[in-house]
């Protein structure tokens, strides 16, 4: 052997031994180092979870009447693992089934595709679950046709029919409560990928809105899971585990079905009245709270929709209608998402501000036709001079000019356009004390906070819009370049960062940039009624198991106290009573046998309707009753409804009539809804209710 030959052998041997060691190293990494990772990966390749949804818990009213329950429907399901093995991948069978059920093949085809199988653009209606569970194409099949499918299994291979639980909102007493209850629907990718997404199983239905959403973790229960091991052809080789489902818990609410029905009826009635008067009356809301606890007894919003359309299978048109402007966006819950200027209902805040600023409430003030602020004349609402009147009467007849004067004086005292460092800001601090601009904290999703346009807000707003106003002629669209708007922009550009006299004056009568939700106003008036306690409104009262055990009590929570002294509150309560006896709401409550207190509001709205017409006023009535020892706060708002007194106050009266059992101006003792106050004990929930079919 020559040297080169020997050397080559040694080099080759070294190289080959190194290659073998490299394989050994890699093997160590794969099996020991990254072993757990690959074990998990292998498990996810081999195992399939088949999820049996749990029976969802009921939602009941305070006396146990179901608001949401589960009905038995006949589902027709498709087994993809059978269909996919057919020669045409199930086309013929699906076509035949669709024809039998009177459905369109295209719809059925879409419904039975896994979402991952379809391009994102034609996703709508796809199946979010897995291939291994029966995919429902309808949950409400005609029993005769369902039977045909079961009996002629040879004609319908891969198709089955079985009873399933369908979420149902029975609408007892004719209630709708769609916004309050919400709905359930299949999980979306966002639900699964979001925080806490791991708690879900793909085929589960979850609460999507309202109480169904808020209390989903209680209502949903735990689905049963059967894990099977499959091979590459997806045939099951063995069963790994089988866990039975745990039904969801029931939610008891403080809602009363009868009162909810009355509130919805009174609201719709008020809107129809507004329309009959020539107003647009496009939307509205009504709220009834227990002033002693903040519990919600009824919450209505208009326009609404049938809460059962989701489970029936929403058509494309239906889902578009829910959000269409032409229909008034029925999906929006006006009671807690609608933001409106509170107008004169806000004067309760102004009164507290004036009292805190040291104004004597027991003396007289002049109520002229207009007050000059800077070089603008601010008019009284009906431009009628009322002479010199008491503060109480000023509230009762809703005099504006008295507030213009006080607000303007206070504004000047705080430094006017060059504000003092520690300005008193009695009006803003009173509004903050009422928690305007903050959410009420109700146990419903997507509440709007409202807006308190104080100095800081003004400054932030200016920073955002300065460029727009200062370059208005170049930035704004041509049709918005009217003389008035150009002048307004110029003014905003110069001192839009400061509270001007006009802003202060507008603020004192609840106009301008201040907006609140109807629910917020109900919370404020509850606080006035109960002596100053601001409660967090709650709909849920308790969560109880199917066996009746209470597992969660939702206790009322105090959020704060009104910034008003006892005497101020007493004065305010008296004034609010005068509104009903001798003020703006007197016509609406003529002959009403039970003393109630309240305040009307008629808010001017700037801007135009889609058809170009000027927007009508917002009609408000905020109230509580009985005046002595108050228990209920009732607020109604009709957007573009016209006057507060004629539209909303009449509506609120109807709600009180139901509460107190008033028929033809007489109290019928047997007709009162809560002869002993709203129920505090939890109702018994009958197990048969789960499957009852109304």
């Amino acid at each position, binding site marked *: *052997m*020559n*040297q*080169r*030959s020997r050397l*080559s*052998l040694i*080099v*080759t*041997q070294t190289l*080959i*031994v190194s*290659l*073998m060691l*490299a*394989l*050994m190293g*890699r*093997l*160590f990494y*794969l*099996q*020991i180092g*990254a*072993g757990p*990772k*690959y*074990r998990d*990966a*292998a*498990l996810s*390749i*081999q195992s399939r979870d088949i999820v049996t949804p749990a029976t969802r818990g009921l939602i009941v009213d305070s006396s146990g009447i179901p608001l949401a329950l589960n009905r038995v429907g006949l589902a027709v399901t498709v087994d993809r693992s059978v269909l996919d093995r057919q020669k045409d991948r199930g086309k013929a069978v699906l076509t035949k089934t669709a024809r039998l059920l009177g459905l369109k093949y295209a719809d059925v085809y879409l419904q039975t595709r896994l979402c991952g199988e379809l391009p994102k653009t034609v996703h709508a209606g796809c199946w979010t679950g897995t291939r291994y569970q029966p995919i429902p194409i309808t949950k409400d099949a005609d029993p005769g046709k369902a039977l045909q499918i079961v009996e002629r299994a040879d004609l319908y291979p891969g198709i089955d029919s079985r009873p399933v639980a369908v979420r149902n909102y029975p609408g007892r007493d004719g209630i709708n409560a769609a916004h309050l209850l919400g709905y359930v629907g299949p999980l979306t990718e966002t639900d699964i990928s979001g925080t806490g997404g791991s708690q879900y199983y793909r085929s589960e239905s979850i609460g999507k809105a309202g109480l169904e959403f808020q209390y989903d973790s209680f209502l949903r229960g735990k689905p049963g899971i059967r894990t099977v*091991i*499959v*091979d*590459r*052809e997806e*045939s099951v*080789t063995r069963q790994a585990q089988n866990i039975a489902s745990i039904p969801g818990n029931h939610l008891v609410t403080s809602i009363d079905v009868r009162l909810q029905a009355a509130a919805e009826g009174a609201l719709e009635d008020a809107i129809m009245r507004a329309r009959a008067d020539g107003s647009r009356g496009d939307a509205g809301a009504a709220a009834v709270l227990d002033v002693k606890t903040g519990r919600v007894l009824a919450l209505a919003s208009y326009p609404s929709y049938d809460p059962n359309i989701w489970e029936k299978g929403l058509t494309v048109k239906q889902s578009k209608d829910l959000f269409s402007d032409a229909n008034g966006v029925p999906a929006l819950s006006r009671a807690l998402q609608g933001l409106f200027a509170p107008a004169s209902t806000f004067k309760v805040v102004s009164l507290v501000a004036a009292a805190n600023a040291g104004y004597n409430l027991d003396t007289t003030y002049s109520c002229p036709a207009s007050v000059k602020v800077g070089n603008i004349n601010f008019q009284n609402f009906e431009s009628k001079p009322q002479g010199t009147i008491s503060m109480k009467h000023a509230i009762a007849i809703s005099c504006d000019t008295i507030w213009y004067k006080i607000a303007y004086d206070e504004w000047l005292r705080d430094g006017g356009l060059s504000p003092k460092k520690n300005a008193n800001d009695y009006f803003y601090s009173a509004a903050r004390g009422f928690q305007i601009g903050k959410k009420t904290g109700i146990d419903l999703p997507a509440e709007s906070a409202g807006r308190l346009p104080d100095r800081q807000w003004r400054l932030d707003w200016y920073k955002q819009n300065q460029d727009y106003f200062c370059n208005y002629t170049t930035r704004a669209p041509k049709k918005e370049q009217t003389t008035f708007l150009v002048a307004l922009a110029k003014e905003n550009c110069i001192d839009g960062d400061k509270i001007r006299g006009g802003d202060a004056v507008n603020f004192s009568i609840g106009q301008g940039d201040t907006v609140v939700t109807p629910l917020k106003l109900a919370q404020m008036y509850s606080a006035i009624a109960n002596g100053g306690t601001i409660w967090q409104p709650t709909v849920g009262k308790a969560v109880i198991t199917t066996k009746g055990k209470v597992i969660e009590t939702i206790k009322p929570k105090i959020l704060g106290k009104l910034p008003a002294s006892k005497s101020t509150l007493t004065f305010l309560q008296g004034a609010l009573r005068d509104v009903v006896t001798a003020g703006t709401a007197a016509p609406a409550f003529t002959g009403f046998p039970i003393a109630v207190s309240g305040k009307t509001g008629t808010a001017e709205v700037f801007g135009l309707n889609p058809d170009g017409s000027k927007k009508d006023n917002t009609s408000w009535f905020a109230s509580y009753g009985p005046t002595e020892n108050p228990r209920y706060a009732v607020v109604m708002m009709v957007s573009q409804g016209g006057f507060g007194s004629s539209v909303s106050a009449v509506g609120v009266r109807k709600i009180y009539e139901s509460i107190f059992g008033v028929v033809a101006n007489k109290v019928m003792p047997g007709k009162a809804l809560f002869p002993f106050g709203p129920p505090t004990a939890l109702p018994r929930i009958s197990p048969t209710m789960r499957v009852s079919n109304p």
Partner: protein
Amino acid sequence: MSAIISTYSARRRGRRDSFISGLDPILSLAVAGLLIIGTLLVYSATKSWYTSIGLDPQYYLKRHIINISIGGLLALSAMIIDYRLLRAYTPILYGLSVLGLIAVLIPGVGSTVNGARAWISLPGGFQIQPAELAKISIIVGISLVLSERIHDREAPTHPDVIRALAIAAFPILLILLQPDMGTVIIISASVVTMVAVSGAPSRWVAGLLIVALVGGFAAVKVGVLSEYQVKRLQSFVNPSADPQQSGYQLRQSRITIGSGGFLGKGLFTGPQTNGRFVPEQQTDFIFTVAGEELGFVGSSFILLLFLIILLRAFRIARRSQDLFGRLVCAGVIAWFAFQAFENIGMTMGLMPMTGVPLPFLSYGGSSMFANLIGVGLLQNVYARQRP
């Protein structure tokens, strides 16, 4: 050379007296170990599959054992003929291989599996792969040219090397046409190793290595490789590029091995194997069965057996009494080593996907025959080595 040999004392007697005593016992045991493990793995990979489709679950087991038996007989004949006599048959062997390689390219004779036209179908469902037998004829042929020289120099000259390369070039070209890149790479590795061990000028070795690297690079770039092969190479670099095809295979393969852990899931009880998530598991991906069912302990034992075989073969090469024997050994070593590395490396994501079977373990007749003939050649040289 003769000077070196003369320094050793007389040859030990009796070596050829008994057949068994003429074998390298450690090499034989290691090969037998791999064959037994391979048989079990092939059975495990196919048992539940054939049961589930209602066929004889021992179908592959039986055929695998038949292949080993035929291979054993071929190994025996490769062993007992004095390899010096083998030289006489070399041209015939070479000619037959080339004819076979041409035949597979003829439509209707050759059949295409996985994009390569590499098989000749025979009646009775048998297939032979001429490229496997070509490996042997190339190794023996080059050994012959490089060791049997007309001149008297210590090392092969340039013309010797050129002649050797010419011998290899023709079959390699034919295999490239199939195209079967894996086999081309392995044969090339063998050729380079043999040229190096022959003591040829180092320029040749360096040059050949450069040609191999540039050739490989150009093949991908210029598109000599079929789309199918480029895809497989790309999926090696980025396994998610083609998740349903070759990328899928590589991913499944790695998961299957990784899920085995330290002790494995136990023979015949690997869920990945029983679920047949790795395609071609009884042939090119047989190592994944070992990875999953025998775990790190069993799989590294297989690697150890390969290492023992290769180290024994190096020992035989060193002790060979002539250059021809040493070159045959070097060729066989490079073949086994690179084929094992390529195959196991592929299953673990270290090497690109080229469809070569794992020596001694994969199911497949031609490959098994060739491997065992290779072992036979090693034993042949051993039996005639200097003491």
